């Protein structure tokens, strides 16, 4: 628990920064829009309708949607718009916070007694005076209630910013969920909930101060809120050294390898941050655009995904093809293969009598396939399905950890396992052979961003990892993180792997 807590302060800082920025932007947009809507019923219908529509989009999807949107925008204006990290998170959270703000500003203004407004006109108030002296103070309590709602939502939803590569309290939650470290999940959840509670209480203080016309109370609340923002932001003040950002996808091996890369770079004097939980397509584009500096990819994934190739060439041909393609197109660098494969392979429980994918195809109509979250959408799946005529009774998608559970408990009869997964050996699972060679090779390869491709110190720190990790070592490291008892952290596994890798 202690190391879970230790990593919180910088995450709280960036979490608060994001939530505060989103709330500020939502207020800047929402207050005038609410005011204009209160005066024009047709605009109100339009604005509130649009804001409600946004609310119906799941917040995770809204965040994800901004990634292609910003990529397109960046392409349109010739680059320079970051599609990952702060910007998409800010925009999605801002949109999400708009509805309660606008709705309550409109409701607060509409609830004002018309006689009071007539009196305001009759005593000779200018529109500005009417707004400042009458409408704003009378609508404030209702508007504040909306702002409180928006703030609590925003702080909660900011945990999802982790998925677009912005560090937030979602980091320990998502990482913990992945590697079943419930202390991490709890630490993230409790910290986010406490932030929301404290913010809500302070905004409530301001609301009461306004409602009861006690200026001191409102100012105290506002002062404490600002103080809290500053305190939370303190860890960010330690200076923006040019740090290396290491990307990782959403499974244990990736967390471990990211930490291993991080250890080597730190030894070479670099500051290191991690962007974890990235999807396959997102990770490579993030590398090409420089949002991350380095990550581990798998050759077959890149071949069929970003490169859009079909077929399954031999190992060396594929690696050469990748290196050539990178040099011509995205200018990223293939530093080299790490020495093991993490191929997609169908795994079944021991004793099933199945040996190859062809055997599986024969019995598939009465079996259920358990897949990880992206496998069923990947070209490899389509290729192998075509090659063997695979037709399952049903397919279900799981996060990797739960996929092995599903096989174990019989919810799934075959799974899309990973060949470097420690649970294969531990559970005595049978990996099916691929006689038609429909699945491409999945060599783990180390990739560097266009900028880092020119950084010789950086490359020198990483080259010793090339062809240095055996599949046995990787399986063992993975298993220490994935097993149910005596679980190790990815850091500990990376430390062990580092020792095995020194030559």
């Amino acid at each position, binding site marked *: 628990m202690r190391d879970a807590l230790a990593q919180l302060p910088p995450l709280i800082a960036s979490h608060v920064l994001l939530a505060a920025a989103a709330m500020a932007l939502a207020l800047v947009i929402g207050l005038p829009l609410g005011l204009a809507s209160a005066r024009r019923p047709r605009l109100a219908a339009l604005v509130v309708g649009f804001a409600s529509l946004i609310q119906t989009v799941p917040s995770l999807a809204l965040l994800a949607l901004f990634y292609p949107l910003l990529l397109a925008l960046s392409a349109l204006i010739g680059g320079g718009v970051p599609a990952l990290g702060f910007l998409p998170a800010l925009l999605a959270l801002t949109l999400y916070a708009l509805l309660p703000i606008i709705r309550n500003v409109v409701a607060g203004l509409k609830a004002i007694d018309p006689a009071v*407004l007539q*009196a305001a006109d009759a005593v000779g108030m200018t529109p500005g005076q009417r707004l400042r002296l009458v409408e704003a103070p009378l609508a404030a309590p209702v508007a504040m209630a909306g702002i409180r709602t928006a703030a609590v939502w925003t702080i909660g939803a900011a945990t999802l910013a982790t998925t677009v590569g912005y560090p937030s309290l979602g980091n320990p939650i998502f990482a913990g969920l992945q590697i079943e470290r419930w202390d991490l999940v709890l630490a993230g959840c409790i910290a986010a909930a406490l932030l929301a509670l404290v913010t809500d209480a302070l905004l409530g203080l301001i609301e009461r101060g306004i409602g009861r016309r006690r200026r001191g109370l409102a100012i105290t609340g506002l002062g404490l809120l600002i103080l809290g923002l500053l305190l939370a932001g303190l860890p960010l003040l330690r200076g923006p050294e040019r740090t290396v950002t290491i990307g990782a996808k959403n499974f244990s091996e990736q967390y471990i390898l990211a930490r291993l890369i991080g250890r080597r770079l730190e030894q070479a004097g670099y500051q290191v941050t991690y962007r974890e939980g990235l999807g396959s397509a997102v990770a490579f584009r993030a590398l090409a655009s420089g949002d991350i500096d380095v990550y581990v990819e798998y050759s077959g994934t890149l071949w069929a995904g970003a490169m859009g190739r079909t077929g399954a060439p031999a190992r060396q041909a594929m690696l050469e093809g990748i290196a050539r393609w990178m040099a011509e197109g995205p200018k990223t660098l293939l530093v080299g293969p790490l020495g093991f494969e993490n191929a997609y392979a169908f795994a079944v429980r021991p004793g099933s009598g199945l040996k190859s994918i062809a055997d599986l195809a024969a019995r598939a109509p009465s079996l259920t396939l358990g897949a990880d979250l992206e496998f069923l959408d990947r070209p490899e799946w389509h290729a192998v399905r075509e090659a063997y005529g695979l037709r399952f009774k049903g397919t279900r998608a799981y996060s990797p950890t739960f996929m092995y559970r599903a096989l174990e408990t019989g919810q799934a009869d075959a799974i899309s396992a990973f060949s470097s997964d420690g649970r294969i050996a531990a559970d005595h699972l049978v990996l099916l052979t691929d006689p038609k060679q429909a699945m491409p090779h999945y060599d783990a390869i180390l990739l560097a961003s266009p900028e880092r491709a020119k950084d010789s110190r950086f490359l020198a720190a990483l080259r010793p990892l090339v062809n240095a990790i055996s599949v046995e070592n990787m399986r063992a490291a993975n298993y220490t993180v994935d097993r149910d008892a005596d679980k190790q952290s990815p850091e500990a596994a990376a430390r062990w792997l580092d020792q095995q890798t020194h030559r």
Partner: protein
Amino acid sequence: MSGAGGVQVAGREGQPVLAYEQASRRYAGVSAVDYVSLKIERGSFVALVGPSGSGKSTLLRLANRLDLPDTGRVLVDGKDIAHVDPIQLRRGIGYVFQNIGLFPHLTIAENIGIIPRLAGRGSIDVRAALERVGLSSDLADRLPAQLSGGQQQRVGIARALAGEGKLLLMDEPFGALDPVTRDRLGQMVRQLHDDLGLSTMLVTHDMAEALLLADRILVMTEGRIVADATPREILSGQAGPEADALVAVPRAQTKRLADLLP
């Protein structure tokens, strides 16, 4: 001393304080005010009576530009108010209406002092302003919701007078009050009118109130002024059938009350 609609002593510039020239106002094609021409002499207390929907309130609201005429002109102190800054105009005209419209988040003192504050004239003597309308200065720091309806309307009147305008517009100011309070406030307003040298236009649907307070009574029906007479002329039946119909009600009530006596 009131001129009873006859020749008034001329005002500063010999002009009426308020004049309508062929003023009309329509809502959705229906005339609320239908080509009205009218002069209100300085210092007069004019009551505007007539059935609901006859255009009384609209006519009043044209005087401080809370509403604008579709045709014709409205002049205050001889100036066409279409060319006067409406903000300055309203600060110089007292306006009191049935729903009072005190600012619920401001104290009584702040409510009364709002026009001087808006005009940048600083603070006023709240105690004197409260006493003028028969209220204790203890109320100064209360909020409107802590006062009775009658007290609130007294504050409404004090707020209107604090602008130091000489023209006072009242739109059914006592409509929501009980009869005793209503009578007391009516007499108080008439007294203030005389003491401060105001020109007052009072909209009411209560003919008895109009007869007892005003110097001059205008009867309005369907946007037009159908009778313009002194209370005495109206009571003696010289003001036409509409006025007779309105005055018949209090007269019959008085007679029925008298008949109740043994």
